[in-house]
């Protein structure tokens, strides 16, 4: 077993609204990511996956607040650290984060190289301009970005190019973990593929040690990550390897998600898509029992009675449901 890069134990964070209501967007989430592995987080919008991404950095600002739990990066617990220390010593060097609209992070009045200089000098004030340029050029070339990009202004670059530039810049300090929150969902399929290739290259070249990839596009997740976690209403409802989760989902919610996959493959036309009825619960007052109970086909009275624990089965596989895996598999087979 290789080294664990990121370990999260029972992390709970909440939003506090203007009216002082608490919204538990991340509810006792535990995860583990090993060196050289990538972890995918799937779920519909509003399930807390983006909040999880923000929470993992340990850098909290209103309205997001830390409640409990631990974040351990390469053996170092950052959950109790001062936000300013986190910014100085963790962000960029240990954890890098790419939000969905990362391409808008580029300052339109600055050349790309100036942006990179800022990033590097914030952590290493002694770095000279030529050193930085050489480093950036070398890195960009490995990642398939032409060196001319460095001397350009953001407006001169296309959307996909900007996104890749920001990603290359954000990992220039070789962070241990990269958190990518829907880095390609605003892009064309072609640019999306380039971004994915780039993320793969980052892993292969060792510029990042592990990656957390967040998206609601399951086919993409399946192709990018080794493991997948499915998140629903702030909780992890299922985790396992990509294959297991996509082809043999256990939790009824994951099953529902898998039924909404559309891919341009022969035969896909004849698959009957099925959507999950209803809406996710309001996280201001999360339900007592299973969060998914109200939308679940197989719901039993006891589902709503008490919180459901994650059932661990072989390997790293786990799911949050009262039924046994055999029961669920059989039910899916009969119910289509």
């Amino acid at each position, binding site marked *: 077993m290789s080294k664990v890069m990121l370990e999260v134990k029972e992390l709970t964070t909440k939003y506090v609204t203007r009216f002082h209501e608490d919204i538990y967007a991340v509810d006792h989430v535990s995860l583990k990511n090993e060196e050289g592995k990538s972890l995918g987080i799937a779920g519909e919008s509003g399930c807390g996956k983006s909040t999880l991404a923000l929470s993992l950095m340990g850098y909290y600002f209103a309205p997001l607040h830390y409640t409990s739990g631990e974040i351990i990066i390469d053996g170092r617990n950052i959950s109790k650290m001062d936000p300013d220390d986190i910014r100085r010593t963790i962000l960029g060097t240990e954890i890098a984060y790419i939000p969905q609209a990362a391409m808008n992070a580029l300052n339109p009045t600055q050349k790309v190289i100036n942006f990179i200089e800022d990033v590097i000098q914030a952590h290493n004030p002694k770095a000279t301009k030529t050193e930085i340029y050489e480093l950036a050029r070398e890195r960009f070339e490995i990642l398939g970005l032409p060196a001319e990009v460095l001397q350009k202004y953001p407006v001169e670059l296309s959307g996909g190019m900007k996104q890749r530039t920001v990603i290359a810049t954000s990992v220039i300090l070789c962070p241990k973990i990269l958190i990518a929150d829907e880095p390609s969902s605003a892009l064309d399929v072609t640019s999306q593929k380039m971004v994915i290739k780039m993320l793969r290259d980052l892993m292969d070249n060792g510029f990042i040690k592990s990656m957390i990839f967040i998206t609601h*596009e399951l086919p993409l997740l*399946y192709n990018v990550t080794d493991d997948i976690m499915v998140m629903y209403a702030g909780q992890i409802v299922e985790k396992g390897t990509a294959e297991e989760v996509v082809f043999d989902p256990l939790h009824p919610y994951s099953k529902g998600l898998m039924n909404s996959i559309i891919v341009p493959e022969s035969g896909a036309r004849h698959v009957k898509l099925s959507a999950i009825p209803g809406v996710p619960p309001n996280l201001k007052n999360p339900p007592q029992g299973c969060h998914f109970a109200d939308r679940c086909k197989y719901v039993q009275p006891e589902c709503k009675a008490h919180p459901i624990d994650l059932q661990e089965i072989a390997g790293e596989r786990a799911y949050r449901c009262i039924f046994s895996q055999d029961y669920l598999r059989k039910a899916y087979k009969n119910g289509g």
Partner: protein
Amino acid sequence: MADEKKLCLCGSGLTKIYGLGRQKCIAVDHVDFEISECEFVSIVGESGSGKTTLAKMLLGLTKPTEGEIYFQGKKRDISTLRKKKEYWKSIQAIFQDPYSSYNTFNKIDTVLLDCISMRGGRKLPHAKKIDLMEEACSFVNLKFEELTNKYPFELSGGQMQRLMIARIFILKPQILMADEPTSMIDACSRATILDMLMKLRKDIGMTIIFITHDIGLAYYISDCVYIMEHGKIIESGSAEEVILHPKEEYTRRLINDVPKIHEEWDLSSVSYA
């Protein structure tokens, strides 16, 4: 076979040029197409390929620079507001962004009542109007009692888009132009929307023009696919034909670039150019 199908909407040499002189930008370049009644047509292209401009021209929101549109065999005439109104009774649209598709100052009731009036139901008794709205809402799996007196922005993106379909259900146009109706909402709601579009066609016999950048969606849902690149239609044909046996290099690339699950997704072929 060709005789059975009645042509619904045709375009010949449709061109739209924005700007003048050096800043000239050809958005749509001599596009020809024929759409039969009750057909589900997809127009696939990347951003900037001119598919939305094409949609706006078909809707009569933008004037084509060149070319003609034929509606039900006759040349389309929308020179006056009255004729436009008549045309819009037979063609309606769902737009990409549900959040900007609603007037945030109008309640949901207003949105639906507006459609009833447009269908000539302005003088219907109130109870009848409520019945119509309830029927439309139940068609899209929404409960009218829960929506009444609410504002559209209180709904989720998926629900808003479903309300758009409820609107179409009341209006019952012959043609529905769906301009990327699923691209702003997440994968789970997507299936619902697609289901409802198919149901619209089956139950009402609507012709649906579905504009998308996702070739997987186009393959799943449509009978006929047009691929657009740089304002031109470069390939067209039945969905099976185009997606499973693409002739053009561009189409092949589009298909390759979509992540797959049962087949190998080849990342090594990516060129960074």
